[in-house]
């Protein structure tokens, strides 16, 4: 072990190769800056060294350390592996799990500078974000996610053994198609507890096995709880969480099928905040790694060579190609988020008149880290950009807006980075991060009392139509087990049945 005196000062590492001691020592230095100087409060970190193949594997299982087996993960793995081998799209340097303790993956092929960057970015930045952002606090349960994943994996494996793999895979295919419709966006979900899940699921098996839905019709007053008997309620109000509705009320599902619906729903719930905070989360983590790495260099703890390597990595990650660049693939969430957080820090300490108009809550507050932590805690991408995207950033990125209408032959420029355009651009960008801009809005509006036909209404967002909904609709019908009607919410026309 390195003596304490040495650990507190001096260069942390030299050269590209890393050792476990380097990582330990660097983590300690990074953590001290994060905690003492930036006021971060993180979950304990679990840092795992993995190979590039394991990293790809983790990607393919949507980044989770444990996951049930499914062919679609193999497909994603095959794609990533192909891309990786061909040399496009290098692997991300980091992968971090929203769990307590927070699991950080470091790839063994990384240079030590990259490892340091990842420690600052993920083990400090993302970790603090997971622990403090309101959306994560409400919608996910970091302490029990890994246990729940183990439960899910074992349950799926067990069902495959009992029912045969094709049946389980086919049913999961259907569940996956409805993944985006398993989220309670309006109310806080209940906490996950694997022990409770198991107990609940046993109870369901007991109750359901004795009750076929045919019997329900004959004996409507049967003593079991309404939910377990699968009697559909008259929908008091439209239901957005289709998987919830299916789990509780689909007429002819078997208990194990309801459980798979529930697992899909719980996973969707867990990932919901990640999709809603991409810009903020990456922006915040980038801001944190940038600050920490610069501090380390100021303290004389990194060599100039290492610092230059870091700056190159940083510039790479934050690269924003312009719209007519062949590399353009949308706004880079790292770049956008980083720009906003950096702007918050600037406006907090050195505001000008524009900041006082556009960022009134933080301009000149003189507590940059306080303002940043507050921003990271209380928003999601959409509200964050609405609140903090300033004219300075709009000018720097030279943002402009095009209006695209399906019937029009040309795109119209409807805002540019000028006095008239700032507010409009800010609103439009924020709108793009709204859930409904990216996910068609479907609601269950009716369940027929006798036929149990489920009516789903599509509420179009800005006159969009559904892109070939047939295959997804077939999956929906599989899950409901009775007829389903997909209706256009505006015109009332049946889209599919």
């Amino acid at each position, binding site marked *: 072990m390195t003596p304490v005196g040495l650990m507190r000062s001096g260069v942390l590492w030299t050269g590209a190769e890393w050792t*476990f001691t380097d990582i330990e020592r660097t983590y300690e230095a990074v953590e001290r800056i994060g905690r003492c100087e930036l006021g971060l409060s993180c*979950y304990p970190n679990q840092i*795992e060294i993995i190979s590039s193949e394991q990293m790809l594997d983790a990607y393919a299982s949507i980044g989770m350390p444990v996951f049930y087996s499914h062919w679609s993960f193999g497909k994603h793995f095959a794609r990533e592996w192909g891309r990786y081998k061909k040399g496009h799209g290098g692997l991300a340097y980091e992968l971090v799990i929203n769990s307590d303790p927070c699991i950080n993956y470091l790839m063994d092929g990384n240079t030590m500078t990259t490892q340091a960057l990842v420690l600052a970015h993920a083990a400090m930045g993302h970790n603090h974000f997971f622990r403090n952002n309101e959306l994560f606090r409400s919608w996910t349960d970091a302490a029990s996610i890994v246990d729940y994943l183990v439960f899910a994996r074992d349950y799926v494996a067990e069902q495959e053994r009992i029912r045969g793999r094709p049946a389980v895979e086919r049913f999961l*295919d259907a569940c996956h198609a409805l993944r985006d419709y398993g989220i309670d966006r309006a109310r806080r979900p209940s906490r996950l507890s694997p022990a409770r899940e198991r107990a609940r699921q046993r109870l369901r098996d007991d109750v359901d096995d004795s009750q076929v839905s045919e019997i329900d019709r004959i004996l409507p007053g049967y003593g079991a709880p309404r939910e377990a008997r699968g009697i559909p309620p008259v929908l008091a109000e439209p239901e957005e969480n289709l998987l919830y509705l299916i789990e509780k009320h689909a007429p002819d599902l078997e208990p194990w099928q309801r459980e798979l619906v529930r697992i899909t729903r719980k996973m969707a719930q867990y990932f919901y905040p990640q999709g809603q905070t991409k810009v903020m989360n990456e922006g915040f983590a980038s801001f944190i790694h940038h600050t920490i790495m610069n501090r380390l260099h100021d303290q004389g703890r990194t060599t100039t060579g290492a610092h230059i390597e870091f700056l190159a990595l940083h510039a790479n990650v934050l690269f924003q190609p312009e719209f007519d660049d062949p590399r353009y693939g949308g706004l880079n969430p790292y770049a956008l988020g980083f720009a906003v957080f950096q702007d918050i820090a600037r406006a907090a300490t050195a505001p000008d008149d524009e900041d006082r108009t556009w960022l009134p809550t933080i301009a000149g507050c003189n507590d940059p880290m306080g303002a940043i932590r507050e921003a990271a805690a209380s928003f999601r991408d959409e509200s964050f950009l609405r609140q903090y995207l300033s004219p300075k950033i709009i000018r720097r990125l030279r943002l402009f807006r095009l209006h695209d209408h399906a019937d029009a032959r040309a*795109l119209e420029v409807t805002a*540019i980075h000028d006095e008239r355009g700032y507010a409009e651009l800010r609103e439009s960008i924020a709108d793009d991060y709204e859930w409904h801009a990216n996910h068609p809005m479907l609601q269950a509006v009716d369940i027929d009392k006798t036929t149990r036909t489920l009516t789903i209404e599509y509420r179009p967002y800005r006159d*969009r139509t559904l892109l*070939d909904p047939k295959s997804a609709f077939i999956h929906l019908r599989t899950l409901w087990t009775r007829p389903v009607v997909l209706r256009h919410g505006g015109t009332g026309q049946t889209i599919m049945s």
Partner: protein
Amino acid sequence: MSSVIIDRRQNPKDRSLVNRQRFIERVRDEVRKSSHRVLGDKGLHDRGDSELTVGGSGIAEPRFMHDPRSGERDLVLPGNRQYSLGDLIEKPQAGGGGAGGTQPGEGDGDFSFAVSHDELVDIILEDLELPRLLRRSEGSVETTALRRAGYAPSGPPSALDVERTMSQSLARRIALRAPSLARIAELQRSREACDIEAERAAIDAEIARLAARAHAIAFLDPLDLRYRRFERQPKPSARAVMVCIIDVSASMGERERRLGKQFFHLLSLFLNRKYREVDIVFVRHHHEAEECDEETFFASGSTGSTVVSTAYRVAEAVITRRYASEDWNIYFAQVSDGDNLGADGPTCAGALDRLLPRSRHFAYVEVLREGPSHVTRTTDLWTVLDRVARRHPNLGMRQVMDDDDVVPAFRSLFAGLPVGAQVGRA
């Protein structure tokens, strides 16, 4: 904030493998269809990855999505240099709407991915019912090897297994309740420590009893002896040579050579599975024959008439010179369009009569002319070989027309259908 560092690099990689196998299983049929086409493009010695493409339906992951071409939307883009408010920009032609950043089709269209050479071979050979093939083509075996086969109660002294024998002895002594020497020694000690005369006498008696019993039960009995047993096992020889013969006369076009290459490829994969060492000899011919390298072998042909027996002669010379020893398993694979000089027939038959007894299998693949009459037409070479096949059951003959015929032809050649039966296209 505490932390732990864990090294996971040695963890098993089974998770990705399981999911990957499931994925490949899911697309197996389609993969097979494209995989033997991949063989047509690969060199026979190429062990690199191959790119396979499969259609979307079986592996689509449908979701409800907005149609990006419908309705209206606002795009906010970075990097404005020239546009002012109210400017109109022509929509880009190729759908999608310019730089909207729509991801390339998830689930729609074709999906390409890489498979390693071993995976490819697995996929193809599984299709060929490999185990059956192995048994069938094992043939007679000349060499045998000794192989361990458990233990026997008798045998030569050199094969005595001491450990086994001692454990037998121990088991017998325990079963017969033989007193342990340790127990006797313990009694001895307690006797010396004992002051009371009567007790000492009792201990002495006990010791005497135990000693007598120990003496009566043999430490090592002939019953205990165990010998290592060996069996003679037939040992298939581990080396094979595959002689590829191809007709490169003008009548053999691009299609013929591609089909031929696929067939040779299958055979080489198959032999590589079966034998530790596989040599490949390439012989090409028109009215003359020569041994050549792989590249020349598949390169385009030359003009001239066709005299097949020249190739047999070259092949025979190569075999005699380089592969004469008993432990070479010799396979022939010939691809031709069936054209041959009429007068060459008897010479061919004679050459084959010499070659066939020396070889495990001779596979003759005739690429049919494109055209309506191909099924009924019998070529010169086919007629000759058909007659030879009646004398030599290890000559197999098949006709192929296009890519989809190659694998079935290969399988039927090696899977024990009546030799010489003329299998038309399915």
